């Protein structure tokens, strides 16, 4: 028997049997969906490319205590001092108090100014928005031309094939050095192998690599409908939004910690917008 005959036999056999399910089974299935909550989508809100981890009570208390200590230190440092050897007895002129850099708000449009995001501060122009106090975006960061900038301080898992990430985790522990993280990222399955180049940001050295989503990627067909490059140790995921999206990563050694600055854009991002992103990047101060 040749293959065509076998194909016919197989097709005939597959056509046997009912091809309509019972209506009561459909009703039961629909009723089950009514008892099921929808998961928040990554388009709603606009750029949830990373899961947020709720801050626990201890962390809030610790942050509040740290803030009090910081205020106290600032207070001590700005109290005018007088006297001392050779010191002037004249009344000192008021010294301007340093203004603490505000942390990115949880959401919403940002007033132009300088903001803190994890281990760094940077200046944003008008037209940018905050995402989960973690990153800043323009045009929601979404295709075709959105942009995003965000820090990653504890990447723990890199996926060898970001489209089939469920079966390809490379590591489950934080990458200890710039080189080990870079090595894992450059070997990911992508259209082209990223070439790391030396980078220095605010005096800290590291590597810069440009990772992009392969052009023929059907994101919805990837594992879980997500193209996922990495996950941090707190469970935050970097999953991409569309083919050809770029993640321009600067991976830095900051006092022994491997910290990453992620700039996201698309080929259709305008030159003017790219210049804005570059200006933000150029304003970065590392404050671990």
């Amino acid at each position, binding site marked *: *028997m*040749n*293959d065509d*005959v*076998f*194909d016919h*036999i*197989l*097709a005939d*056999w*597959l*056509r*046997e*049997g*009912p*091809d*309509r*399910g*019972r209506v009561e*089974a*459909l009703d*039961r*299935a*629909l009723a*089950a*969906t*009514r008892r*099921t*909550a*929808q*998961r*928040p*989508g*990554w*388009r*709603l809100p606009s750029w949830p490319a990373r899961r947020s981890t709720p801050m626990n009570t201890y962390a809030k208390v610790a942050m509040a205590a740290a803030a009090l200590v910081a205020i106290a230190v600032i207070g001590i440092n700005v109290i005018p001092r007088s006297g001392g050897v050779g010191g002037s007895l004249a009344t000192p002129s008021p010294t301007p108090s340093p203004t603490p850099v505000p942390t990115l708000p949880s959401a919403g449009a940002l007033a132009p100014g300088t903001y803190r995001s994890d281990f760094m501060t940077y200046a944003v122009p008008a037209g940018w928005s905050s995402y989960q106090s973690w990153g800043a975006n323009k045009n929601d960061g979404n295709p075709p031309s959105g942009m995003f900038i965000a820090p990653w301080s504890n990447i723990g898992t890199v996926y060898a094939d970001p*489209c*089939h990430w469920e079966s390809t985790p490379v590591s489950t522990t934080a990458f200890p050095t710039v080189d080990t993280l870079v090595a894992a990222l450059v070997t990911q399955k992508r259209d082209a192998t990223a070439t790391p180049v030396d980078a220095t940001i605010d005096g800290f050295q590291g590597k810069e690599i440009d990772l992009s989503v392969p052009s023929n990627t*059907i*994101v*919805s*067909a*990837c*594992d*879980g*409908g*997500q193209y996922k490059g990495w996950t941090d140790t707190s469970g935050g995921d970097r999953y991409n*939004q*569309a083919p050809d999206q770029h993640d321009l990563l600067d991976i830095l050694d900051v006092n022994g910690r491997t910290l990453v600055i992620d700039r996201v854009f698309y080929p259709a991002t305008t030159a003017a917008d790219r210049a804005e992103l570059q200006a933000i990047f150029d304003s970065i101060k590392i404050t671990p």
Partner: protein
Amino acid sequence: MTSGLVERAQRGDHEAFDALATAAYHRLYAVSRRILRDGYAAEDVVQETLIRAWRDLRGLREPERFDAWLQRLLIRACQDHVRGQRRRPLQVPVLDVDGPVAIDEIARLADRDELERAFLELSVEHRAVLVLTHYVGLPAPEIAEILGIPPGTVYSRLHYAIRAMRVSMTRSGSTRGAGTRMASPDPEHGR
């Protein structure tokens, strides 16, 4: 039309999702029943598929790909079902035979039994490719999109599945079938 319903369902509109699910239901059932060879299991898998679809719908970036996405969820649910069954006692699938079986049907039933057994020896991934190709009639690129694999992998799975079934049936001594004999598979002359 479908995209509009998908977008409404993404915003939590149950009626829109019901319309989508109802339109897809019989197709999902027919495919899963053929992959699993069990009507009750197919109903369970379709229910699981619809629950997952509703739960994760907001993550679907391209509403126009809803049908392909739904079929992918179905194949995954079939995989999960079979994985779960491996931890349970073996269940013998029941042939769909209505009414008394005539004597002259015995030979044909024997062949169907051999087909059934050989088919169930395949992985769900291979069964899915066979069903989507020979039952649904989809071309390889569309199957590739549903399964999230390259078209070349679809062809190789198809080739492997056919060869494996023929090897299995030949090994078991089944040489009947529409008055022809099953030839030994020849891996050097695949399709």
